Protein backbone atom coordinates (compact mmCIF):
# COMPACT_ATOMS: atom_id res chain seq x y z
CA UNK A 1 0.00 0.00 0.00
CA UNK A 2 2.24 2.75 1.28
CA UNK A 3 5.94 3.37 1.61
CA UNK A 4 6.62 5.36 4.77
CA UNK A 5 10.03 6.90 5.43
CA UNK A 6 11.78 5.04 8.22
CA UNK A 7 13.03 6.99 11.22
CA UNK A 8 14.11 6.03 14.71
CA UNK A 9 10.96 7.38 16.30
CA UNK A 10 8.17 5.10 17.42
CA UNK A 11 5.46 7.05 15.65
CA UNK A 12 4.65 7.91 12.07
CA UNK A 13 2.66 10.77 10.58
CA UNK A 14 -0.81 10.39 9.21
CA UNK A 15 -1.96 12.80 6.47
CA UNK A 16 -2.78 16.27 7.82
CA UNK A 17 -2.86 19.88 6.70
CA UNK A 18 -1.96 23.03 8.61
CA UNK A 19 -2.77 26.71 8.47
CA UNK A 20 -1.52 29.80 10.31
CA UNK A 21 -4.39 31.48 12.12
CA UNK A 22 -2.21 34.04 13.92
CA UNK A 23 1.07 34.42 15.78
CA UNK A 24 -0.26 33.24 19.16
CA UNK A 25 1.16 30.17 20.94
CA UNK A 26 -1.74 28.09 19.57
CA UNK A 27 -1.71 29.92 16.28
CA UNK A 28 -1.35 26.90 13.99
CA UNK A 29 -4.44 24.93 13.10
CA UNK A 30 -3.87 21.28 12.17
CA UNK A 31 -6.66 19.31 10.54
CA UNK A 32 -6.65 15.60 9.82
CA UNK A 33 -8.10 13.98 6.73
CA UNK A 34 -11.01 12.83 8.88
CA UNK A 35 -11.83 16.37 10.05
CA UNK A 36 -10.33 16.21 13.56
CA UNK A 37 -8.40 19.33 14.53
CA UNK A 38 -5.86 20.68 17.01
CA UNK A 39 -4.21 24.03 17.71
CA UNK A 40 -0.42 23.92 18.02
CA UNK A 41 2.52 26.27 18.35
CA UNK A 42 5.18 26.49 15.68
CA UNK A 43 7.66 24.71 17.98
CA UNK A 44 5.18 21.86 18.54
CA UNK A 45 4.65 21.41 14.80
CA UNK A 46 8.39 21.27 14.36
CA UNK A 47 8.68 18.62 17.07
CA UNK A 48 5.82 16.66 15.54
CA UNK A 49 7.24 16.39 12.03
CA UNK A 50 10.80 15.85 13.22
CA UNK A 51 9.71 12.93 15.45
CA UNK A 52 10.82 14.65 18.61
CA UNK A 53 7.50 14.65 20.42
CA UNK A 54 7.90 13.15 23.87
CA UNK A 55 5.55 10.25 24.50
CA UNK A 56 3.12 10.38 27.44
CA UNK A 57 2.53 14.10 27.03
CA UNK A 58 -1.07 15.28 26.63
CA UNK A 59 -0.23 16.64 23.16
CA UNK A 60 1.17 13.29 22.02
CA UNK A 61 -1.96 11.51 23.26
CA UNK A 62 -4.20 14.07 21.57
CA UNK A 63 -2.36 13.68 18.27
CA UNK A 64 -2.65 9.92 18.54
CA UNK A 65 -6.34 9.96 19.47
CA UNK A 66 -7.21 12.44 16.73
CA UNK A 67 -5.41 10.56 13.98
CA UNK A 68 -2.49 12.86 13.27
CA UNK A 69 0.05 10.14 14.16
CA UNK A 70 0.09 6.39 14.72
CA UNK A 71 2.48 4.14 16.61
CA UNK A 72 4.41 1.63 14.59
CA UNK A 73 3.71 -1.25 16.94
CA UNK A 74 0.38 0.09 18.13
CA UNK A 75 -3.24 0.03 17.14
CA UNK A 76 -3.97 0.31 13.37
CA UNK A 77 -5.97 3.54 12.96
CA UNK A 78 -6.86 3.09 9.31
CA UNK A 79 -10.16 1.15 9.58
CA UNK A 80 -11.45 3.70 12.09
CA UNK A 81 -10.35 6.57 9.89
CA UNK A 82 -12.01 5.01 6.85
CA UNK A 83 -15.27 4.76 8.82
CA UNK A 84 -15.02 8.44 9.84
CA UNK A 85 -14.22 9.46 6.29
CA UNK A 86 -17.15 7.46 4.99
CA UNK A 87 -19.46 9.14 7.49
CA UNK A 88 -18.30 12.61 6.41
CA UNK A 89 -18.94 11.70 2.78
CA UNK A 90 -22.16 9.78 3.40
CA UNK A 91 -24.03 12.15 1.05
CA UNK A 92 -22.39 10.30 -1.84
CA UNK A 93 -24.17 7.04 -1.18
CA UNK A 94 -27.80 7.91 -1.86
CA UNK A 95 -27.96 9.77 -5.18
CA UNK A 96 -29.72 13.12 -5.64
CA UNK A 97 -31.89 13.83 -2.58
CA UNK A 98 -32.95 17.42 -3.28
CA UNK A 99 -35.31 17.87 -6.23
CA UNK A 100 -36.28 21.41 -7.14
CA UNK A 101 -39.32 21.96 -9.34
CA UNK A 102 -39.43 25.40 -10.98
CA UNK A 103 -43.18 25.39 -11.58
CA UNK A 104 -43.30 28.94 -12.93
CA UNK A 105 -41.05 31.93 -13.46
CA UNK A 106 -43.96 34.33 -12.92
CA UNK A 107 -43.79 36.57 -9.85
CA UNK A 108 -45.55 39.63 -8.45
CA UNK A 109 -42.28 41.09 -7.13
CA UNK A 110 -39.78 43.09 -9.12
CA UNK A 111 -36.74 42.44 -6.93
CA UNK A 112 -33.65 44.18 -8.22
CA UNK A 113 -31.33 41.25 -7.54
CA UNK A 114 -33.67 38.80 -9.26
CA UNK A 115 -34.06 40.36 -12.66
CA UNK A 116 -33.22 37.30 -14.67
CA UNK A 117 -35.19 34.52 -12.97
CA UNK A 118 -38.67 35.92 -12.95
CA UNK A 119 -41.32 36.74 -15.52
CA UNK A 120 -44.21 39.21 -15.30
CA UNK A 121 -47.36 38.07 -13.48
CA UNK A 122 -49.39 37.61 -16.65
CA UNK A 123 -46.46 36.37 -18.76
CA UNK A 124 -47.08 33.24 -20.81
CA UNK A 125 -44.70 30.43 -21.66
CA UNK A 126 -43.09 30.47 -18.23
CA UNK A 127 -44.99 27.62 -16.53
CA UNK A 128 -44.00 23.96 -16.19
CA UNK A 129 -46.32 21.81 -18.32
CA UNK A 130 -48.30 18.91 -16.86
CA UNK A 131 -46.39 16.51 -19.07
CA UNK A 132 -42.98 17.77 -18.03
CA UNK A 133 -44.13 17.55 -14.40
CA UNK A 134 -45.06 13.86 -14.89
CA UNK A 135 -41.62 13.11 -16.32
CA UNK A 136 -39.93 14.99 -13.47
CA UNK A 137 -41.72 12.81 -10.90
CA UNK A 138 -40.38 9.74 -12.73
CA UNK A 139 -36.83 11.17 -12.51
CA UNK A 140 -37.29 11.83 -8.80
CA UNK A 141 -38.04 8.17 -8.10
CA UNK A 142 -35.13 7.01 -10.25
CA UNK A 143 -32.85 8.45 -7.58
CA UNK A 144 -32.03 5.69 -5.09
CA UNK A 145 -32.03 8.11 -2.14
CA UNK A 146 -34.27 6.83 0.70
CA UNK A 147 -34.77 10.43 1.87
CA UNK A 148 -36.04 12.96 -0.65
CA UNK A 149 -36.87 16.65 -0.49
CA UNK A 150 -39.26 18.04 -3.09
CA UNK A 151 -38.94 21.81 -3.22
CA UNK A 152 -41.14 24.09 -5.30
CA UNK A 153 -39.39 27.18 -6.60
CA UNK A 154 -40.20 30.06 -8.87
CA UNK A 155 -40.82 32.82 -9.64
CA UNK A 156 -43.65 32.45 -7.19
CA UNK A 157 -44.76 28.79 -7.10
CA UNK A 158 -48.16 29.59 -5.61
CA UNK A 159 -49.02 31.28 -8.92
CA UNK A 160 -48.88 27.80 -10.45
CA UNK A 161 -50.53 26.01 -7.56
CA UNK A 162 -52.35 23.50 -9.80
CA UNK A 163 -48.95 22.21 -10.92
CA UNK A 164 -47.76 22.00 -7.30
CA UNK A 165 -50.89 20.04 -6.47
CA UNK A 166 -50.41 17.67 -9.42
CA UNK A 167 -46.80 16.95 -8.44
CA UNK A 168 -47.49 16.41 -4.72
CA UNK A 169 -50.37 14.05 -5.49
CA UNK A 170 -48.33 12.12 -8.07
CA UNK A 171 -45.37 11.79 -5.69
CA UNK A 172 -47.54 10.60 -2.84
CA UNK A 173 -49.42 8.11 -5.01
CA UNK A 174 -46.15 6.63 -6.22
CA UNK A 175 -44.66 6.69 -2.75
CA UNK A 176 -47.35 4.39 -1.36
CA UNK A 177 -45.27 1.64 -3.03
CA UNK A 178 -41.81 3.21 -2.85
CA UNK A 179 -42.03 4.10 0.85
CA UNK A 180 -39.33 6.75 0.85
CA UNK A 181 -39.17 9.51 3.42
CA UNK A 182 -40.31 12.57 1.46
CA UNK A 183 -40.49 16.18 2.59
CA UNK A 184 -42.32 18.87 0.63
CA UNK A 185 -41.28 22.53 0.79
CA UNK A 186 -42.73 25.50 -1.07
CA UNK A 187 -40.40 28.52 -1.40
CA UNK A 188 -42.79 31.40 -1.50
CA UNK A 189 -43.36 35.04 -0.62
CA UNK A 190 -46.62 33.74 0.94
CA UNK A 191 -48.51 36.61 -0.73
CA UNK A 192 -50.75 34.23 -2.63
CA UNK A 193 -51.60 32.00 0.28
CA UNK A 194 -55.30 31.21 0.50
CA UNK A 195 -57.49 28.71 2.33
CA UNK A 196 -57.25 26.23 -0.54
CA UNK A 197 -53.44 26.28 -0.37
CA UNK A 198 -53.47 25.96 3.42
CA UNK A 199 -55.94 23.05 3.32
CA UNK A 200 -53.77 21.22 0.81
CA UNK A 201 -50.57 21.96 2.75
CA UNK A 202 -52.17 20.67 5.93
CA UNK A 203 -53.40 17.51 4.25
CA UNK A 204 -50.01 16.74 2.71
CA UNK A 205 -47.68 18.01 5.44
CA UNK A 206 -46.11 20.68 3.25
CA UNK A 207 -43.67 23.17 4.76
CA UNK A 208 -43.00 26.71 3.59
CA UNK A 209 -39.74 28.58 3.18
CA UNK A 210 -40.10 32.31 2.78
CA UNK A 211 -37.85 35.35 2.44
CA UNK A 212 -37.68 37.90 5.21
CA UNK A 213 -35.00 40.48 4.58
CA UNK A 214 -35.37 42.35 7.87
CA UNK A 215 -37.69 45.13 9.02
CA UNK A 216 -40.21 46.67 6.62
CA UNK A 217 -37.93 49.46 5.36
CA UNK A 218 -35.30 46.92 4.20
CA UNK A 219 -37.63 44.18 3.02
CA UNK A 220 -39.83 46.53 1.00
CA UNK A 221 -36.81 48.23 -0.56
CA UNK A 222 -35.40 44.84 -1.57
CA UNK A 223 -38.70 43.42 -2.76
CA UNK A 224 -40.78 46.06 -4.47
CA UNK A 225 -44.41 45.35 -5.32
CA UNK A 226 -46.82 47.83 -6.89
CA UNK A 227 -48.58 48.20 -3.50
CA UNK A 228 -45.31 48.48 -1.51
CA UNK A 229 -46.64 46.07 1.09
CA UNK A 230 -44.34 43.03 0.60
CA UNK A 231 -43.23 42.94 4.24
CA UNK A 232 -46.74 43.19 5.68
CA UNK A 233 -48.07 40.50 3.35
CA UNK A 234 -45.20 38.12 4.10
CA UNK A 235 -45.72 38.57 7.85
CA UNK A 236 -49.41 37.90 7.39
CA UNK A 237 -48.55 34.74 5.46
CA UNK A 238 -46.16 33.57 8.20
CA UNK A 239 -48.90 34.11 10.80
CA UNK A 240 -51.46 32.16 8.76
CA UNK A 241 -49.11 29.23 8.10
CA UNK A 242 -48.23 29.00 11.78
CA UNK A 243 -51.85 29.20 12.90
CA UNK A 244 -52.87 26.41 10.58
CA UNK A 245 -49.80 24.17 10.31
CA UNK A 246 -47.81 24.91 13.45
CA UNK A 247 -44.92 27.19 14.35
CA UNK A 248 -42.24 25.04 12.71
CA UNK A 249 -44.03 24.84 9.35
CA UNK A 250 -42.40 28.00 8.04
CA UNK A 251 -38.76 29.05 7.95
CA UNK A 252 -37.24 32.19 6.51
CA UNK A 253 -34.14 33.16 4.55
CA UNK A 254 -32.52 36.57 4.36
CA UNK A 255 -31.20 38.11 1.19
CA UNK A 256 -28.62 40.75 1.95
CA UNK A 257 -28.49 43.63 -0.50
CA UNK A 258 -25.68 46.18 -0.15
CA UNK A 259 -27.82 48.41 2.08
CA UNK A 260 -28.70 45.51 4.42
CA UNK A 261 -25.07 45.30 5.51
CA UNK A 262 -25.52 48.47 7.53
CA UNK A 263 -28.21 46.89 9.70
CA UNK A 264 -27.13 43.55 11.23
CA UNK A 265 -28.89 44.21 14.55
CA UNK A 266 -32.13 45.44 12.95
CA UNK A 267 -32.33 42.36 10.73
CA UNK A 268 -31.74 40.03 13.67
CA UNK A 269 -34.25 41.93 15.85
CA UNK A 270 -36.88 41.36 13.18
CA UNK A 271 -36.29 37.60 13.35
CA UNK A 272 -36.53 37.72 17.15
CA UNK A 273 -39.77 39.67 16.90
CA UNK A 274 -41.22 37.17 14.45
CA UNK A 275 -40.14 34.34 16.76
CA UNK A 276 -37.90 32.45 14.37
CA UNK A 277 -35.29 30.23 15.97
CA UNK A 278 -32.94 30.33 12.98
CA UNK A 279 -31.72 33.07 10.67
CA UNK A 280 -29.68 32.52 7.54
CA UNK A 281 -27.41 35.44 6.67
CA UNK A 282 -26.45 34.72 3.06
CA UNK A 283 -24.49 37.05 0.81
CA UNK A 284 -25.98 37.88 -2.57
CA UNK A 285 -25.05 35.41 -5.25
CA UNK A 286 -23.95 36.61 -8.68
CA UNK A 287 -26.72 34.87 -10.60
CA UNK A 288 -29.86 36.97 -10.49
CA UNK A 289 -28.46 40.30 -11.58
CA UNK A 290 -28.95 41.93 -14.86
CA UNK A 291 -25.45 43.06 -15.81
CA UNK A 292 -26.44 46.72 -15.56
CA UNK A 293 -27.38 46.35 -11.87
CA UNK A 294 -24.32 44.45 -10.74
CA UNK A 295 -22.34 47.56 -9.90
CA UNK A 296 -25.12 48.88 -7.63
CA UNK A 297 -26.18 45.69 -5.88
CA UNK A 298 -23.01 43.66 -5.46
CA UNK A 299 -20.53 44.28 -2.65
CA UNK A 300 -17.03 43.09 -1.80
CA UNK A 301 -16.95 39.91 0.25
CA UNK A 302 -14.87 41.73 2.89
CA UNK A 303 -17.89 43.94 3.62
CA UNK A 304 -20.11 40.91 4.01
CA UNK A 305 -17.58 39.26 6.34
CA UNK A 306 -17.44 42.36 8.58
CA UNK A 307 -21.26 42.38 8.68
CA UNK A 308 -21.36 38.67 9.46
CA UNK A 309 -18.93 38.94 12.38
CA UNK A 310 -20.95 41.80 13.87
CA UNK A 311 -24.16 39.83 13.41
CA UNK A 312 -22.67 36.71 14.98
CA UNK A 313 -21.48 38.66 18.04
CA UNK A 314 -24.96 40.13 18.45
CA UNK A 315 -26.57 36.70 18.09
CA UNK A 316 -24.26 35.26 20.75
CA UNK A 317 -25.20 38.11 23.12
CA UNK A 318 -28.93 37.56 22.48
CA UNK A 319 -28.60 33.79 23.02
CA UNK A 320 -26.82 34.54 26.29
CA UNK A 321 -29.90 36.50 27.32
CA UNK A 322 -32.08 33.46 26.76
CA UNK A 323 -33.26 34.20 23.21
CA UNK A 324 -32.92 31.14 21.02
CA UNK A 325 -31.83 32.18 17.54
CA UNK A 326 -29.08 30.39 15.63
CA UNK A 327 -27.34 31.39 12.39
CA UNK A 328 -27.84 28.78 9.70
CA UNK A 329 -24.47 28.89 7.93
CA UNK A 330 -22.52 28.88 11.20
CA UNK A 331 -24.56 25.86 12.33
CA UNK A 332 -23.64 24.02 9.12
CA UNK A 333 -19.95 24.82 9.42
CA UNK A 334 -19.95 23.81 13.09
CA UNK A 335 -21.55 20.49 12.15
CA UNK A 336 -18.68 19.95 9.72
CA UNK A 337 -16.07 20.99 12.30
CA UNK A 338 -17.36 19.32 15.45
CA UNK A 339 -19.12 16.18 14.26
CA UNK A 340 -18.12 13.30 12.01
CA UNK A 341 -21.35 13.74 10.04
CA UNK A 342 -22.18 15.40 6.74
CA UNK A 343 -24.62 18.29 7.02
CA UNK A 344 -26.18 17.47 3.65
CA UNK A 345 -25.81 21.10 2.56
CA UNK A 346 -25.33 20.99 -1.20
CA UNK A 347 -22.98 24.01 -1.55
CA UNK A 348 -20.51 22.72 1.06
CA UNK A 349 -19.74 19.34 -0.39
CA UNK A 350 -16.77 17.72 -2.00
CA UNK A 351 -17.42 16.17 -4.49
CA UNK A 352 -19.65 19.11 -5.34
CA UNK A 353 -23.35 18.69 -4.60
CA UNK A 354 -24.61 19.92 -7.97
CA UNK A 355 -26.21 17.01 -9.83
CA UNK A 356 -24.90 14.38 -7.42
CA UNK A 357 -26.95 15.77 -4.55
CA UNK A 358 -29.54 17.95 -6.24
CA UNK A 359 -31.46 18.28 -9.49
CA UNK A 360 -33.53 21.16 -10.83
CA UNK A 361 -36.47 20.61 -13.18
CA UNK A 362 -36.90 23.89 -14.98
CA UNK A 363 -40.23 25.28 -16.24
CA UNK A 364 -39.14 24.62 -19.83
CA UNK A 365 -38.46 20.92 -19.23
CA UNK A 366 -34.69 21.28 -18.97
CA UNK A 367 -32.85 19.56 -16.11
CA UNK A 368 -30.03 21.39 -14.33
CA UNK A 369 -27.55 20.38 -11.63
CA UNK A 370 -28.44 23.35 -9.41
CA UNK A 371 -30.67 26.38 -9.13
CA UNK A 372 -27.69 28.57 -9.93
CA UNK A 373 -27.02 26.65 -13.14
CA UNK A 374 -30.55 27.25 -14.36
CA UNK A 375 -30.28 30.94 -13.43
CA UNK A 376 -27.18 31.15 -15.61
CA UNK A 377 -29.42 29.95 -18.42
CA UNK A 378 -31.57 33.06 -18.00
CA UNK A 379 -28.36 35.10 -18.24
CA UNK A 380 -27.67 33.52 -21.62
CA UNK A 381 -25.47 30.61 -20.55
CA UNK A 382 -27.12 27.36 -21.61
CA UNK A 383 -24.03 25.19 -21.27
CA UNK A 384 -24.86 23.73 -17.86
CA UNK A 385 -28.06 21.95 -18.93
CA UNK A 386 -27.88 18.22 -18.17
CA UNK A 387 -30.61 17.37 -20.64
CA UNK A 388 -34.36 17.08 -20.84
CA UNK A 389 -36.75 15.90 -18.16
CA UNK A 390 -37.81 13.17 -20.59
CA UNK A 391 -34.39 11.48 -20.39
CA UNK A 392 -33.70 8.85 -17.72
CA UNK A 393 -31.75 9.97 -14.65
CA UNK A 394 -28.83 7.75 -15.59
CA UNK A 395 -28.46 9.55 -18.92
CA UNK A 396 -28.72 12.95 -17.25
CA UNK A 397 -26.04 12.06 -14.72
CA UNK A 398 -23.75 10.82 -17.47
CA UNK A 399 -24.01 14.09 -19.39
CA UNK A 400 -20.74 15.85 -20.29
CA UNK A 401 -21.76 18.65 -17.91
CA UNK A 402 -21.55 16.23 -14.97
CA UNK A 403 -18.09 15.19 -16.15
CA UNK A 404 -17.05 18.83 -16.19
CA UNK A 405 -18.53 19.52 -12.75
CA UNK A 406 -16.91 16.46 -11.22
CA UNK A 407 -13.52 17.21 -12.72
CA UNK A 408 -13.67 20.66 -11.08
CA UNK A 409 -15.70 19.61 -8.06
CA UNK A 410 -13.40 17.60 -5.82
CA UNK A 411 -11.94 20.17 -3.45
CA UNK A 412 -9.22 17.84 -2.15
CA UNK A 413 -7.69 17.88 -5.65
CA UNK A 414 -8.12 21.56 -6.54
CA UNK A 415 -5.28 24.07 -6.57
CA UNK A 416 -5.31 25.97 -3.30
CA UNK A 417 -7.89 23.73 -1.62
CA UNK A 418 -5.62 20.66 -1.79
CA UNK A 419 -3.28 22.33 0.73
CA UNK A 420 -5.93 24.16 2.76
CA UNK A 421 -6.57 23.05 6.34
CA UNK A 422 -10.28 23.87 5.88
CA UNK A 423 -10.87 21.40 3.07
CA UNK A 424 -12.53 18.77 5.34
CA UNK A 425 -15.22 21.34 6.26
CA UNK A 426 -15.50 23.30 3.02
CA UNK A 427 -16.68 22.33 -0.44
CA UNK A 428 -16.20 22.82 -4.12
CA UNK A 429 -18.60 25.00 -6.06
CA UNK A 430 -17.70 24.76 -9.75
CA UNK A 431 -20.89 26.52 -10.85
CA UNK A 432 -20.18 29.56 -8.69
CA UNK A 433 -16.64 29.69 -10.05
CA UNK A 434 -17.95 29.32 -13.57
CA UNK A 435 -20.39 32.19 -12.96
CA UNK A 436 -17.82 34.51 -11.43
CA UNK A 437 -14.58 33.51 -13.15
CA UNK A 438 -15.82 31.80 -16.34
CA UNK A 439 -13.90 28.71 -15.24
CA UNK A 440 -15.32 25.86 -13.12
CA UNK A 441 -12.00 25.37 -11.32
CA UNK A 442 -11.40 29.07 -10.73
CA UNK A 443 -8.51 30.67 -8.89
CA UNK A 444 -8.82 30.52 -5.09
CA UNK A 445 -6.89 33.76 -4.56
CA UNK A 446 -9.67 35.60 -6.43
CA UNK A 447 -12.63 33.46 -5.41
CA UNK A 448 -15.52 35.00 -3.47
CA UNK A 449 -16.58 31.48 -2.42
CA UNK A 450 -13.12 30.88 -0.94
CA UNK A 451 -12.93 34.33 0.62
CA UNK A 452 -16.23 33.78 2.39
CA UNK A 453 -15.53 30.28 3.66
CA UNK A 454 -11.94 31.09 4.61
CA UNK A 455 -13.01 34.13 6.64
CA UNK A 456 -15.99 32.47 8.33
CA UNK A 457 -14.12 29.26 9.15
CA UNK A 458 -11.18 31.24 10.56
CA UNK A 459 -13.60 33.26 12.66
CA UNK A 460 -15.37 30.16 13.99
CA UNK A 461 -12.09 28.40 14.79
CA UNK A 462 -10.89 31.47 16.69
CA UNK A 463 -14.16 31.52 18.63
CA UNK A 464 -13.77 27.81 19.42
CA UNK A 465 -10.19 28.43 20.56
CA UNK A 466 -10.48 31.77 22.36
CA UNK A 467 -14.18 32.31 23.00
CA UNK A 468 -15.44 32.59 26.57
CA UNK A 469 -17.72 29.94 28.03
CA UNK A 470 -20.86 31.71 26.85
CA UNK A 471 -19.64 31.81 23.25
CA UNK A 472 -18.68 28.16 23.32
CA UNK A 473 -21.99 27.10 24.84
CA UNK A 474 -24.00 29.14 22.35
CA UNK A 475 -22.13 27.62 19.40
CA UNK A 476 -22.64 24.15 20.82
CA UNK A 477 -26.35 24.82 21.35
CA UNK A 478 -26.67 25.73 17.66
CA UNK A 479 -24.99 22.52 16.72
CA UNK A 480 -27.16 20.47 19.03
CA UNK A 481 -30.26 22.54 18.15
CA UNK A 482 -30.94 22.82 21.83
CA UNK A 483 -31.64 25.67 24.18
CA UNK A 484 -28.57 27.08 25.88
CA UNK A 485 -30.06 26.29 29.31
CA UNK A 486 -30.38 22.60 28.34
CA UNK A 487 -26.66 22.22 27.65
CA UNK A 488 -24.81 20.59 30.50
CA UNK A 489 -21.24 21.03 29.28
CA UNK A 490 -19.07 24.07 29.97
CA UNK A 491 -17.79 24.17 26.39
CA UNK A 492 -15.74 22.49 23.74
CA UNK A 493 -12.14 23.43 23.22
CA UNK A 494 -10.31 21.54 20.51
Amino acid at each position, binding site marked *: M*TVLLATDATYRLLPFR*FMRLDESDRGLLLTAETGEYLFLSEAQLDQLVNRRLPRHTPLYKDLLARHFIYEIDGHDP*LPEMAAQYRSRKSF*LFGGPALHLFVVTLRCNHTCQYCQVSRAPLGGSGHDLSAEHARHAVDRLFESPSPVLTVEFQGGEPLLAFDRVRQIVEAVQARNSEERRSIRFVISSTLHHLDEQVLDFAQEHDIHFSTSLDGPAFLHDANRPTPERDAHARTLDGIRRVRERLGHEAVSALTTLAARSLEYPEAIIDEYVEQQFDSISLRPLSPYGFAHSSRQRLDYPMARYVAFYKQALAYLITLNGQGIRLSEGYASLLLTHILTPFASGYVDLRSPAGAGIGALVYNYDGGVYPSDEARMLLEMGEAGLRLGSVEQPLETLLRSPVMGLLLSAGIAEGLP*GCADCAFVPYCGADPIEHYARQSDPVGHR*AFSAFCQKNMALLQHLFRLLRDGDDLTQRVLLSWLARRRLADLPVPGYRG
Partner: protein
Amino acid sequence: MPWSFTLSLDETTYPLGVVQRTVYALADRLTCLVAQQPGRVSLEVMPLLLAGEGAPSAETARALLYRNLNDFALRERIRLETQGLCEWLARTALKEAGL
Protein backbone atom coordinates in the same frame (compact mmCIF):
# COMPACT_ATOMS: atom_id res chain seq x y z
CA MET B 1 6.78 49.73 -11.30
CA PRO B 2 7.58 50.57 -7.63
CA TRP B 3 9.87 47.62 -6.90
CA SER B 4 11.01 44.21 -8.10
CA PHE B 5 13.52 41.62 -6.99
CA THR B 6 14.67 38.16 -7.99
CA LEU B 7 15.09 35.14 -5.73
CA SER B 8 17.28 32.26 -6.80
CA LEU B 9 16.21 29.17 -4.88
CA ASP B 10 17.92 25.81 -4.39
CA GLU B 11 15.72 23.22 -6.09
CA THR B 12 16.40 20.55 -3.46
CA THR B 13 15.04 22.82 -0.69
CA TYR B 14 12.30 24.42 -2.77
CA PRO B 15 11.28 22.12 -5.63
CA LEU B 16 9.34 23.60 -8.54
CA GLY B 17 5.97 22.35 -7.20
CA VAL B 18 6.56 24.11 -3.88
CA VAL B 19 7.47 27.36 -5.64
CA GLN B 20 4.43 27.12 -7.91
CA ARG B 21 2.06 26.59 -4.99
CA THR B 22 3.58 29.56 -3.17
CA VAL B 23 3.13 31.77 -6.21
CA TYR B 24 -0.48 30.57 -6.57
CA ALA B 25 -1.27 31.34 -2.92
CA LEU B 26 0.11 34.88 -3.19
CA ALA B 27 -1.38 35.67 -6.61
CA ASP B 28 -3.75 38.27 -5.16
CA ARG B 29 -0.79 40.31 -3.91
CA LEU B 30 2.28 39.49 -5.99
CA THR B 31 3.17 38.93 -9.63
CA CYS B 32 5.86 36.26 -9.92
CA LEU B 33 7.70 34.96 -12.94
CA VAL B 34 9.02 31.45 -12.36
CA ALA B 35 11.99 30.08 -14.33
CA GLN B 36 13.97 26.86 -13.97
CA GLN B 37 17.75 26.67 -14.23
CA PRO B 38 19.90 23.61 -13.53
CA GLY B 39 19.46 22.86 -9.84
CA ARG B 40 17.76 26.18 -9.14
CA VAL B 41 14.37 27.84 -9.45
CA SER B 42 14.37 31.59 -9.97
CA LEU B 43 11.55 33.87 -9.04
CA GLU B 44 11.18 37.40 -10.38
CA VAL B 45 8.81 39.22 -8.04
CA MET B 46 6.75 42.40 -8.46
CA PRO B 47 3.69 43.73 -6.65
CA LEU B 48 0.37 42.90 -8.28
CA LEU B 49 -0.65 46.11 -10.00
CA LEU B 50 -4.33 45.33 -9.41
CA ALA B 51 -3.68 45.26 -5.65
CA GLY B 52 -3.02 49.06 -5.80
CA GLU B 53 -2.63 50.53 -2.32
CA GLY B 54 -3.02 47.07 -0.81
CA ALA B 55 0.16 45.80 -2.48
CA PRO B 56 2.89 44.83 0.02
CA SER B 57 6.30 46.51 0.28
CA ALA B 58 9.35 44.65 -1.08
CA GLU B 59 10.36 43.75 2.45
CA THR B 60 6.94 42.35 3.34
CA ALA B 61 6.81 40.50 0.03
CA ARG B 62 10.16 38.83 0.74
CA ALA B 63 9.01 37.76 4.22
CA LEU B 64 5.69 36.51 2.83
CA LEU B 65 7.44 34.53 0.12
CA TYR B 66 9.89 32.83 2.46
CA ARG B 67 7.20 31.99 5.02
CA ASN B 68 5.00 30.48 2.30
CA LEU B 69 7.92 28.69 0.64
CA ASN B 70 8.84 27.10 3.98
CA ASP B 71 5.23 26.19 4.76
CA PHE B 72 4.71 24.61 1.35
CA ALA B 73 8.04 22.77 1.63
CA LEU B 74 6.85 21.36 4.96
CA ARG B 75 3.50 20.38 3.44
CA GLU B 76 5.36 18.62 0.66
CA ARG B 77 7.42 16.74 3.22
CA ILE B 78 4.29 15.65 5.11
CA ARG B 79 2.70 14.64 1.82
CA LEU B 80 5.70 12.49 0.86
CA GLU B 81 5.86 10.85 4.27
CA THR B 82 2.16 9.97 4.18
CA GLN B 83 1.97 9.28 0.46
CA GLY B 84 -0.79 6.94 -0.58
CA LEU B 85 -2.70 7.11 2.70
CA CYS B 86 -5.20 9.76 1.57
CA GLU B 87 -5.94 7.82 -1.60
CA TRP B 88 -6.23 4.56 0.37
CA LEU B 89 -8.67 6.18 2.79
CA ALA B 90 -10.85 7.65 0.06
CA ARG B 91 -10.81 4.42 -1.95
CA THR B 92 -11.67 2.22 1.03
CA ALA B 93 -14.32 4.55 2.43
CA LEU B 94 -16.06 5.26 -0.86
CA LYS B 95 -15.94 1.80 -2.43
CA GLU B 96 -19.68 1.37 -1.93
CA ALA B 97 -20.52 4.62 -3.71
CA GLY B 98 -18.98 3.20 -6.86
CA LEU B 99 -16.46 6.05 -6.98
